[in-house]
């Protein structure tokens, strides 16, 4: 499916917003969250650029599932590092093992359901962390109400991840055309939620 000019504009805005977040949005944080968020928004930025340059065909690449895992993993790591101090080390180990497991199960040809189970567990835990943690922190008053937008962004990234994973597994929830039609808007909306949540939360 050919990418429309409107889709390219949406992706370009996503790229600029991600660049803004990398340059300015995370300046006040400590080193580990800065690295984690830089990787998350960096993947978003480069993915946006590659989509603009190479078109939707780039989503056919087997590497997409691995790369798209990086965003929720690093975003959730940043959140845990900042707000759940006690779980830092444990979560970092989970991230490293989870990413290695996704990479391994996607690199070797397997006939069983291990690749899907692996990605479901890793994406699931990271996704729930990004979705629930900001909302809980906002409700508890530990963070401003706007921080809940990060959770909304987490929900959107979860939807995007699910659509892509099932699409890549050959069992699409929506038609290919529909997924591609909403994908740039979903990416932009998700990025806006994250940036607004971090800025005003």
């Amino acid at each position, binding site marked *: 499916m050919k990418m429309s000019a409107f889709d390219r504009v949406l992706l370009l805005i996503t790229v600029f917003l991600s660049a803004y977040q990398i340059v300015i949005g995370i300046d006040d944080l400590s080193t580990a969250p800065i690295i984690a968020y*830089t990787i998350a928004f960096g993947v978003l930025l*480069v993915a946006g*650029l*590659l989509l603009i*340059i190479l078109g939707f*065909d780039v989503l056919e690449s087997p590497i997409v599932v691995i790369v798209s895992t990086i965003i929720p993993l690093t975003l959730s790591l940043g959140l845990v590092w900042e707000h759940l101090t006690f779980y830092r080390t444990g979560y970092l180990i989970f991230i490293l093992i989870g990413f290695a497991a996704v990479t391994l199960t996607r690199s070797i040809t397997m006939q069983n359901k291990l690749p899907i189970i692996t990605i479901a567990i890793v994406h699931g835990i990271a996704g729930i962390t990004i979705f629930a943690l900001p909302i809980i922190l906002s409700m508890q008053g530990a963070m401003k109400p706007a921080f809940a937008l990060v959770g909304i962004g987490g929900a959107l990234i979860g939807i995007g991840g699910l659509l892509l994973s099932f699409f890549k597994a050959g069992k699409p929830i929506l038609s290919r055309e529909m997924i591609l039609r909403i994908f740039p808007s979903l990416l932009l909306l998700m990025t806006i939620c994250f940036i607004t949540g971090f800025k005003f939360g």
Partner: protein
Amino acid sequence: MTVQSSIINRKSKIKLYWPLIKSTQTGLLLATGIAGYLSAGTRIGLLTLLGMSISLFLAISGSTILNMWYDRDIDAKMKRTHKRSAASGELDHKEVFGVGIAVSILGIGWAISIAPFYGLVVFAGWFFDVVIYTLWLKRRTAWSIVWGGISGAMPILAGRVLAIGHIDLVGVLLALAILFWIPTHTLTFSIKFREDYANAGVPTFPSTYSDTFTRATIAISSMLAALAIGWASVLIGISAGYLRLIAVLTAGLLLLAFATFRVESERVNFGLFKYASLYMLSSMIILAMKAF
């Protein structure tokens, strides 16, 4: 001849000459010159900046027009370039030569009048492009692109020299970044338009060596360009936020360079070519931020 027909005639001449300066390429090289000047973080002299921009534009345009004049015979044999006004015969080749020389003299002369050392660097870029690359090496060896690259690296060095008055390590690194970026551009074209180059008898990396060697060269030169930009950025002292952004953009470039090396795909090659151009433009904008 009426005044109206004279204006129409002049307009159509400009229309024919405009493609001869390769406006996108010239614009990008001009952007590198401006970035080189601003990267020094010295007080910006608006008149100096304007003079530098015009003199660089003229010198680069002059050398490109002379390149088009000399290569009109091989351009005429290539599908991609046979419609260029110098190759198609729409413009008289003596006139093209005259305009090329005049624009070059104007650009280099203006550059020397602004600052002699800056003018010398601008002249070096013109000399490497017109004499060493175009007249001497382009039809003899595939390695001529190195000299084309050195020539392309001169505008950024010139901009830096104009700002600080001498050549420093940052200037050399910025020049190296452009030198290593240019093969991504030229070698991708030499793969995509291999038949054109073969018809014209121009030696290229794919025809002299192999596609694998060419792709490896593209990948390695992209990595070296990224390394040079990264090093220069640290030495320039740009903020941590912009350093992070350069690191992210560099990671994307390295990923594509690796993909180009691993996967034999024209689409990926062209993707790297486009990304590398965006990368260089973004890097130039980031380096220029130093001035503000």
